[in-house]
């Protein structure tokens, strides 16, 4: 599975818990309040554990976490 699929599944199952089962990779996760500040911490921890990618603190910004697609593109740089 690629980053996009894994992230999408994690967000749907662990962070949304059925609240938005039709989440798409292009959906805005942040402006629409799909993920809150605590959810971001969980997501970063998941990325570290699942992909063995250490996300630098200064990279945890809107531009890199806005959607699953944007986040996947960002992670592809590692």
């Amino acid at each position, binding site marked *: 599975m690629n980053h996009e699929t894994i992230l999408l599944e994690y967000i749907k199952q*662990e962070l949304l818990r059925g609240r938005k089962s039709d989440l798409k990779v292009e959906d805005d996760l942040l402006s629409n309040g799909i993920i809150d500040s605590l959810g*971001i911490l969980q997501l970063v921890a998941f990325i570290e554990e699942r992909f063995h990618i250490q996300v630098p*603190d*200064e990279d*945890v*910004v809107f531009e890199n976490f806005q959607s699953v697609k944007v986040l996947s593109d960002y992670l592809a740089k590692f």
Partner: protein
Amino acid sequence: MDFSWSDEQLAYKRAVVGFAQKELRNGLMERDQKAEFSRENWNKCAQFGIQGLPFPETYGGANADILTTMLTMEGLGYGCADNGLIFAINAQMWSVQMPIFKFGTELQKQKYLPGLISGQIIGAHGMSEPDSGSDAYSMRTRAEKVDRGYVLNGSKTFVTNAPVADMAVVFATVDPKRGMWGVTGFVVDMGTPGFTVSRHIDKMGLRTSPMGELIFEDCFLPEENRLGPVGAGANIFKDSMEWERACILGSHIGTMELQLERSIAYARAREQFGQPIGKFQTVANRIVDMKVRLETARLLLYKVAWLRSQGKSATMEAAMAKLYLGEAFVQSGLDAIRTFGGWGYMTEFEVERDLRDALGGVLYSGTSDIQRNIIARYLGL
């Protein structure tokens, strides 16, 4: 699994305890009553190397790892008794020095770190606002982008060190609609037009640590005063809190150990009904609970520090440590007072001050309620 400390680490801790007992206890009761900060003791700590402990030698630090730093704070908590001073030092180390070191430009590091570490200047950290405490990212302080910089308007409250600070790390939002993603960090010097420090805030405990408010009225800050990327402020703040929680809690362990030792000594010496009060099970059991609480708290904290030293994420573990140690410190203070009886309630016995100081620990750096929220979320609730 290895729980042992190196001889070097233990020797340093002993040195810190000796230094604190000899140099930092002078006139504490009077300073506590007057809510007086000791710049002299602050400078002594800086000269001893406390403020610079985990920072590189380039900036005047000692390059110590997090475990050694935490152990040092434990020694300081045991030897110092001035919880307010320790709190003020920790506030600067983790909420001012660390974000500048981790997220600042080389110019910002060169400008501030040597002075902060040597004690020449003091730093404050502004996050909380009159209307945003636990919901920190709903802040109202605004940073409006203008040509060559930002204009800040708003206020920060409960700012430790504010009345004595030479500079501050502050957070403002560049766009309130973005929530946490608009929060951005800045460094600001005292004397900057539009930036003022208001009244000294008096408080129940930690009275020797000064606290005040920061006011921004059309305060222009050039681009080079921004700390880290635009919108990274929330994560900078989170990083500071994780460091602060681990190390300020280390000093709690030291103080709780001292409370335990004093309670044991008193229960052995104080006689009622013809025998030492420690022979009564009610008293002995209370002291046993203090010991068990101390050791479990220590294990939780060491695990957080170890995880951090391994570069691992420790959000839930840090929340558990903060919750447990904050509450344990309060309970330890209550148990010590109960053991000392009426004498423990008297200021001159220097037992009650720790309880007043401990109560702040269930509020600052994230309240116990917020820590429970974090843990619940990680449990999938």
